[in-house]
């Protein structure tokens, strides 16, 4: 049985605006009425706008049926965003991978999206994470891999890598 608290008290619980990073993965609900791409567009449109307003940035990775999202922002905003996601019926089998205070943002001031229709080459960590399997190196390795994947995508100019 899990412990009640998996991630104990951050340094300053009262400081609601402390910068935090949140990583979760989830599966697309099979009962969703809309197609995956429509759903993705919708998700992007609503969450990106709201996140930008609240000072939340990050990266959304999508492979059909799977989501992985990295969110960075003020603690309270992240908590509220995560609560919204938990109530959202489009997600199932949602798992929180990380929720911790960080020194700086890894994903700048843009809310970003990476669509991985095909397995992202050389990014096994991401695919494993999307499948719900923690790769070696923990979340740091995952963040590095996601960063690298974005950089590569931007360099090869495959798809617009950032959107808001």
């Amino acid at each position: 049985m899990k412990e009640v608290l998996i991630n104990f008290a951050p340094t300053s619980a009262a400081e609601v605006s402390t910068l935090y990073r949140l990583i979760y993965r989830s599966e697309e609900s099979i009962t969703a009425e809309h197609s995956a791409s429509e759903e993705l567009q919708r998700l992007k449109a609503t969450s990106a706008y709201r996140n930008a307003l609240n000072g939340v940035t990050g990266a959304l990775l999508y492979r059909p049926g799977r989501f992985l999202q990295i969110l960075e922002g003020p603690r309270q905003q992240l908590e509220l965003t995560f609560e919204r996601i938990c109530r959202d019926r489009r997600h199932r089998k949602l798992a929180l991978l990380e929720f911790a205070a960080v020194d700086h943002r890894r994903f700048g001031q843009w809310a970003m999206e990476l669509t991985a229709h095909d397995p992202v080459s050389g990014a096994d960590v991401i695919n494993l994470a999307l499948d719900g399997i923690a790769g070696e190196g923990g979340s740091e390795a995952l963040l590095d891999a996601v960063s690298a994947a974005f950089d590569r995508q931007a360099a090869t100019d495959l798809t617009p890598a950032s959107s808001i």
Partner: protein
Amino acid sequence: MHWHNLIFCLSERHDQQTVIVALIICAAGICIAQGIAWGVQDLPGAAGEPRWLLLRALVLGCAIWATHFVAMIGYLPGLPVAYAALPTLASLVVVTVLIRVALPFHDGHGGRRARIAGGAAIGGAVVAMHYIGMAGYYLPGRLVHDPLGSSVSIVFGIALMAGGAWAQGSKRRGLRIAALCLPLLSVLTIHLLGMATMTVVPDSSAALPLLAFSADSLTIPIALSMALLLGAAMATAALVIARHRRGLAERKRLESFANLALEGLLICRDGVILAGNHSAADLLDTTITELSGRPLATMFADPMIIDLAEAGEQAVGLLVPGGAIVPVRVLARRMTIAGANHVIVALRDQRDRLHTEMELNKLANEDPLTGLPNRRSFANALAERLAPAGTRQLTLMMIDLDRFKSVNDTLGHAMGDALLVRAAERLAAALRPGDLLARLGGDEFAVILTETSELEVYDVAQRITDTLSYPFLIAGYVLEIGASTGIARAPRDGKMPEQLTRSADLALYSAKDAGRCTWKQFEESMDGRIQHRRHLELDLRRAVARREFVVHFQPLFAAASGEWIGAEALVRWPHATRGMVPPVEFIPLAEEVGLIGEIGYWVLLQACREAATWPASTHIAVNISPSQVATPGFVDMVAMTLAQSGLAAHRLELELTESALISDEQRTLAVLTAVRELGVSLAMDDFGTGYASLSNLHMFPFSRLKIDRSFIADCTSHAGRASLVRAIIAMGANLGLDVTAEGVETEAQRQFVNGLGCDTLQGYLLGRPMPAAALHEMVDALPRAAAGVPLAICA
């Protein structure tokens, strides 16, 4: 025209005393008419009333007319004069009618110009009266009017009258009173200047009209009638005005009194609001001035309210500006104010009360933390949605948060409350529209789903389980709780609220046992009692098939002699694992599953066979259940058993409880009568615990009454019970019944019932239920034909 003519005319050609009388009449008329005008002007609506206008016109017309004629009488032309009737009377009518027409303008309803025009018109009326009247003035000669003089008198007269009317518009009271001399001057100018500028040319040929009055004959009647008319007018006007003023003062007092009231009050007459208090004005979001004059009916949202005074207090909606409706209670009463019927309407604002009621209702039915329905309103909703019982399909889910208590304990109630609110929101998000979510208290929630397929139910349950298994991020903490859900579906798992709730609870326990964070649908195996019953039923069927029962016998003794007179057969079920199962546990089940006939027959046969081996003086009592009596062929079964066992019918006694008698009385009576005809006797068992109905004892052919053991147990310690036992024994004796005391356990009890004349005794003191062999041993040990006190025997 010469001015000395005027002086001459006044001093030489007029009788000065008569002219003064005329002057007084004129002044009095003008004053009275104006007095009436002032008197009515601040009575609401009265100033413009035709009756007052007519009265004033009459007073003024008559006064001016009388002034003219009295002055004419005082005119001494030095010749004989007469008055033609027609112009004389016509002048009166003309002046009155013209004044009546002009008065509304004179009163200034159309402003200053209308006022001046009205005054001028009245001046014109005086002029018309004067010259029509002069036309009826006859003397032996001709009247020659000086055109200039006449014109001047007419212009001045009209101007003075107009000036008088204009002056009445003044705000200054003194000026208005002083200005009363203007109409007087106007009349005098028109008359005297007109007369002074007129010359009489004697002409003896001029003929008098046929119908004429002589001057002398007119003087006294005119003066008298004028005095009477003016006096009467003045008195009437004074009375009426005074009454109106009194009414007005009364209403003013009422209004100022009403303004102290918190309730809205309206004074109405003929369905129109005359006045209202501040509260009423506030309630209707208007002012007191705007209230008066509004029809009462337009205030209510419900147009059906017609006669308020007839109805009692009632709740209505009040229309207020802006389209809102204010709920009020309204009560109306009839009331007489200054002799007129009024209706007083009281309005009580219900907004505060309704709001309080709503708040109270909310408090009573809502969980203050989450705003969800609480246990109480959930129970109501469940009962409502389940009714009518047995027909409704619905699903009940009981949800318990796992590990909530440890969050509450380690992080405090504030965190616990925040978590509950978030959990409630996630639950709500997992449901579909129309589903009812409630917080039953603590970390217990419940959901009612209506009209759902099994798949949908599982879907919702899975969603609930999933969404609550996700972590909660609160104030930097990651809280992982989870939820267990129990599902019960009506009508399958329960038709009544209690039953369904119990099933859902059992499913919830099962989910918790299964390791939490999961949901379980109710299954019968979860219910221990159902399980127990099912096993018992299986065992019972096996026991019946294998004849696993035994019959025990409890001896009965004659109270007086202590002689052994028989025994009651009692069935026992020796169960391999349960031990000796008492009848109360398996007989109801046997009745329910239809095994009672078989068991009953077997017991009866065993008992009869055993009793057949006993002395002929003894009897055997066997308990019969209600459903046995109701079974067709019961009588035949009894007869067959007697034949099989060889027991004489009179030695068999069947014991029935009162509950065996209540259904289908006629049929039961027929069956029991048939049994009685076989020679078998009947005993009423457990008397006192059922209806203890005397009519049953009368109607059915009983020969024995067995007092229930609960009465005997208390009879020595409880005075009330003792007198009851005494009464039952006396009653049994009166009916010729043999009375048996059951459950005699102490010597004191035995002596007590013996003392009351009880016939037979049964109980642990004398002998417990025992196997047939033990009974044989016991009776063998008994002293033969024992007299007096029997030995106390303990099996």
